[in-house]
């Protein structure tokens, strides 16, 4: 029976070529616009480390006062607060992070000195963020404490300097100082580069990770200034002329991350942050009541507006587009089915039940949906191929034609036609057999 209905649907499609073509083309465009937008949206809102993100939190402390940031604390912490949080060790694991640039040299004379970016971090960074290692595994909290001149390098840099060999124990020079390599990372490129978003901003969130990681304490000793900072008052802080004064200023530039296993831990940590700020108020550093935040990773990504505007807007407009196509297809299906009122009348008069008519026309709708879906797949592939022209290169490269996306296109097309065929089908099934035959007789 199904096969017969599909054959009928195809025969009818041939009979009203223009109308069928219109429905198929509309569907294909609506559906493919949606899947292409969705592919980009999914890529830009995806979880960079699904296994851990629920337990990773970003603490914020307002050291600027309520007049700044419209009530929200600054995105990063001052040196004073960052170190206080880190040394308090109130979380299971905690790390401080700030991105820096280094002049990198090695004994390999064939590679000239390079300027490379990386992060100053603490020992917990690697375990907290599930960073994969190729050779050995990071440094210890003890290295943090003794401000060790140790470095972890990326597999990229390891390949460039040491030809991909195990370079643990070898030395490199960062800004002219000798560092011992204690570990080499495996390929690691979380998208977005969540741990630096607070510092680098959402526009750089999809850039590649850096190549050099050294202990935070060591970077501070080297007076390694952050690339970006934000100071509460430019009239006083711009005059900062020495490092000690800079460290004790209220300028913010350090991102802190904590790992908290259970909701109770989260609650307790929030309490700790509140009490910390309260204490700062008591000793006169803050002249405002505690204003602290503790956001988990995905909340933090949303708060930082990591998903580019182009991606969220196009998702919104594409969804509206599909809705309009849906309304459109309802009208066209109605036209298509009602044109065949006499035929339905005769089938009903010959004994077909309403349910049979209903089934026949839904199958007809689905058949058209499949056709729209197939054309939609072609357009989706075209759209994904053209994503490079529509989105920035660092976003476009995240999008790939995957099987799930192709399946989604076809399913969406069929679902759309079936939904839009529901009302026209219901109308078709209600046709009175006698009336149709009489009028046209």
């Amino acid at each position, binding site marked *: 029976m199904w096969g017969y209905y599909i054959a009928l649907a195809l025969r009818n499609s041939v009979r009203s070529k223009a109308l069928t073509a*219109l429905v198929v083309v509309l569907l294909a465009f609506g559906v493919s616009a949606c899947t292409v937008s969705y592919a980009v949206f999914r890529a830009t809102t995806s979880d960079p480390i699904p296994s851990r993100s629920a337990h990773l939190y970003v603490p914020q402390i307002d050291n600027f006062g309520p007049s700044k940031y419209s009530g929200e604390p600054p995105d990063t912490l001052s040196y004073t607060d960052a170190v206080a949080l880190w040394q308090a060790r109130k979380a299971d694991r905690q790390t401080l992070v700030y991105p820096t640039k280094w002049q990198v040299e090695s004994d390999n004379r064939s590679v000239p000195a390079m300027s490379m970016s990386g992060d100053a971090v603490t020992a917990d960074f690697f375990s907290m963020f599930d960073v994969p290692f190729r050779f050995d595994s990071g440094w210890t909290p003890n290295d943090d404490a003794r401000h060790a001149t140790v470095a972890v390098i990326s597999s990229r840099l390891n390949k460039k300097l040491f030809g991909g060999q195990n370079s643990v124990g070898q030395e490199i020079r960062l800004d002219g100082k000798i560092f011992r390599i204690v570990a080499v990372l495996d390929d690691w490129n979380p998208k977005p580069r969540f741990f630096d978003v607070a510092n680098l901003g959402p526009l750089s969130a999809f850039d590649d990770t850096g190549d050099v990681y050294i202990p935070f304490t060591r970077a501070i000793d080297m007076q*390694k200034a952050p690339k970006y900072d934000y100071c509460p008052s430019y009239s006083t802080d711009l005059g900062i002329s020495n490092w000690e004064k800079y460290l004790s200023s209220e300028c913010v530039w350090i991102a802190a991350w904590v790992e908290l296993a259970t909701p109770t831990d989260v609650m307790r940590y929030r309490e700790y942050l509140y009490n910390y700020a309260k204490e700062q108020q008591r000793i006169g550093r803050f002249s405002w009541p505690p204003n602290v935040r503790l956001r988990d990773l995905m909340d933090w990504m949303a708060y930082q507006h990591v998903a580019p505007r*182009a991606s969220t807007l196009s998702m919104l407009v594409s969804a509206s587009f599909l809705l*309009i196509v849906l309304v459109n297809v309802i009208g066209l299906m109605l036209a*298509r089915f009602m044109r065949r009122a006499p035929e339905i009348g005769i089938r009903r008069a010959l004994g077909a039940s309403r349910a049979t008519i209903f089934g026949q026309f839904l199958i007809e709708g689905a058949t058209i949906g499949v056709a729209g879906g197939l054309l939609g797949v072609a357009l989706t592939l075209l759209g994904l191929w053209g994503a490079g022209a529509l989105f920035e290169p660092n976003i476009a490269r995240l999008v790939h034609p995957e099987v799930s996306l192709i399946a989604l296109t076809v399913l969406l097309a069929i679902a759309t036609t079936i939904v839009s065929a529901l009302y026209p089908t219901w109308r078709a099934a209600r046709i009175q057999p006698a009336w149709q035959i009489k009028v046209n007789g």
Partner: protein
Amino acid sequence: MALTKPFMQLRPIVAALRRHKVATLLIVLQVALTLAVASNALFIVATRIVHLSRPTGTDESHIFVIRNQWEIGQNAAQIDANIRADLDTLRNVPGVRDIFSSEAFPLEGGGGMLVGVKLKPDQTVRPKLAIAYFSDDHAIDTLGISLIGGRNFRPDEITAIGPYDKMAPPVIIVTRSLARKLFPDGPALGRTVYFADGPATIIGVLGSLQGPYAGSTTRSIDEDNVLVPARYIDPGGGVVYLVRAYSTDMKPVIAAALKALSKRGNVRLIDPMEGVVTLPQARERGYATDRSVALLMGILSGLLLLATAGGIVGLSSFWVGQRRRQIGIRRSLGATTGDILLYFHAENFLIVVGGIMLGVLLAVLANLGLMQVYELPRMPLYVPLVGALVLWLLGQVAVWGPARFAAKVPPVVAIRTE
């Protein structure tokens, strides 16, 4: 009276539409949704295009920038000497018109140094924020900007300042925008302003110059810039050389410049990929987000309008097919082909007007909603009204085909049975 004819037909049209409630409603809904979405999307396109075509005020097409990172281990005096020697070297490269060194450049997308500018040394209210460009007596010619008042720096006024040094230049040049914000009531030329570390006299006012932050995000201080007469000495970082070439084809000049710099020995690192950027490239990168938003919204709006036109054609053809007998009867009773055409155009007009009324309302609501989520200005009411006009025209064009088909129905159909 030809003009009143369509209105005389209103009553039968309304009567006919009442028999096709659902189909009519579908077109109304479709027109309304299209109007709401397309006018918002096109409004976003317009705001983005306005934003990304903001001029920097400079001779962009002839300017390129060398990002020069210092080799570690040099002291401030060595770096200062390096900058002077580099400037001399680059100035003598064939094809180079002028050059100066700074810490930032227009369209960089960041990197500018913010300074607080006070009107009195003991001012307690928040100082006006401005962006500093380190520059010298060649900066104005290199950027291709012009003074609207005052004079340029003299070579003997150029000093050297490091990142942690006191920022106290005795003389500065400001943009007109900053001058007006500092001194709304009178000329800024010759006035003294105060940085955190000391006073500075405004010796010149520039017509316009955009700050380095300009790009996909907008700041109110994009035009508020100060030229500071100093070389930027940062042993831990670098300096940027802004070069103005004679030709817009800057490739040979860039190659020659890099070659000349490399001959000066291993004092610097210039990234092979990111080390040199032309201002046209910087513009393209800086406004990439805006361009992609504008392009996407434009394409989707176009598809949307096409979809709606297609829908109107489809449903109208169906109605024409359904009403062949009635049309035949009208024709045999004396209606001309023009009357039939008019009927369908008037009918479409009526439906689209219904859709437009709903659509304008939806468009305004959608705009208010979007304003909550994105930094978007309020959409002026003429945008959906223009959109309404477009949709009305679109409807008329779309119905023209089916209506012409209907007008061709011969009167004899009335008496023929199918």
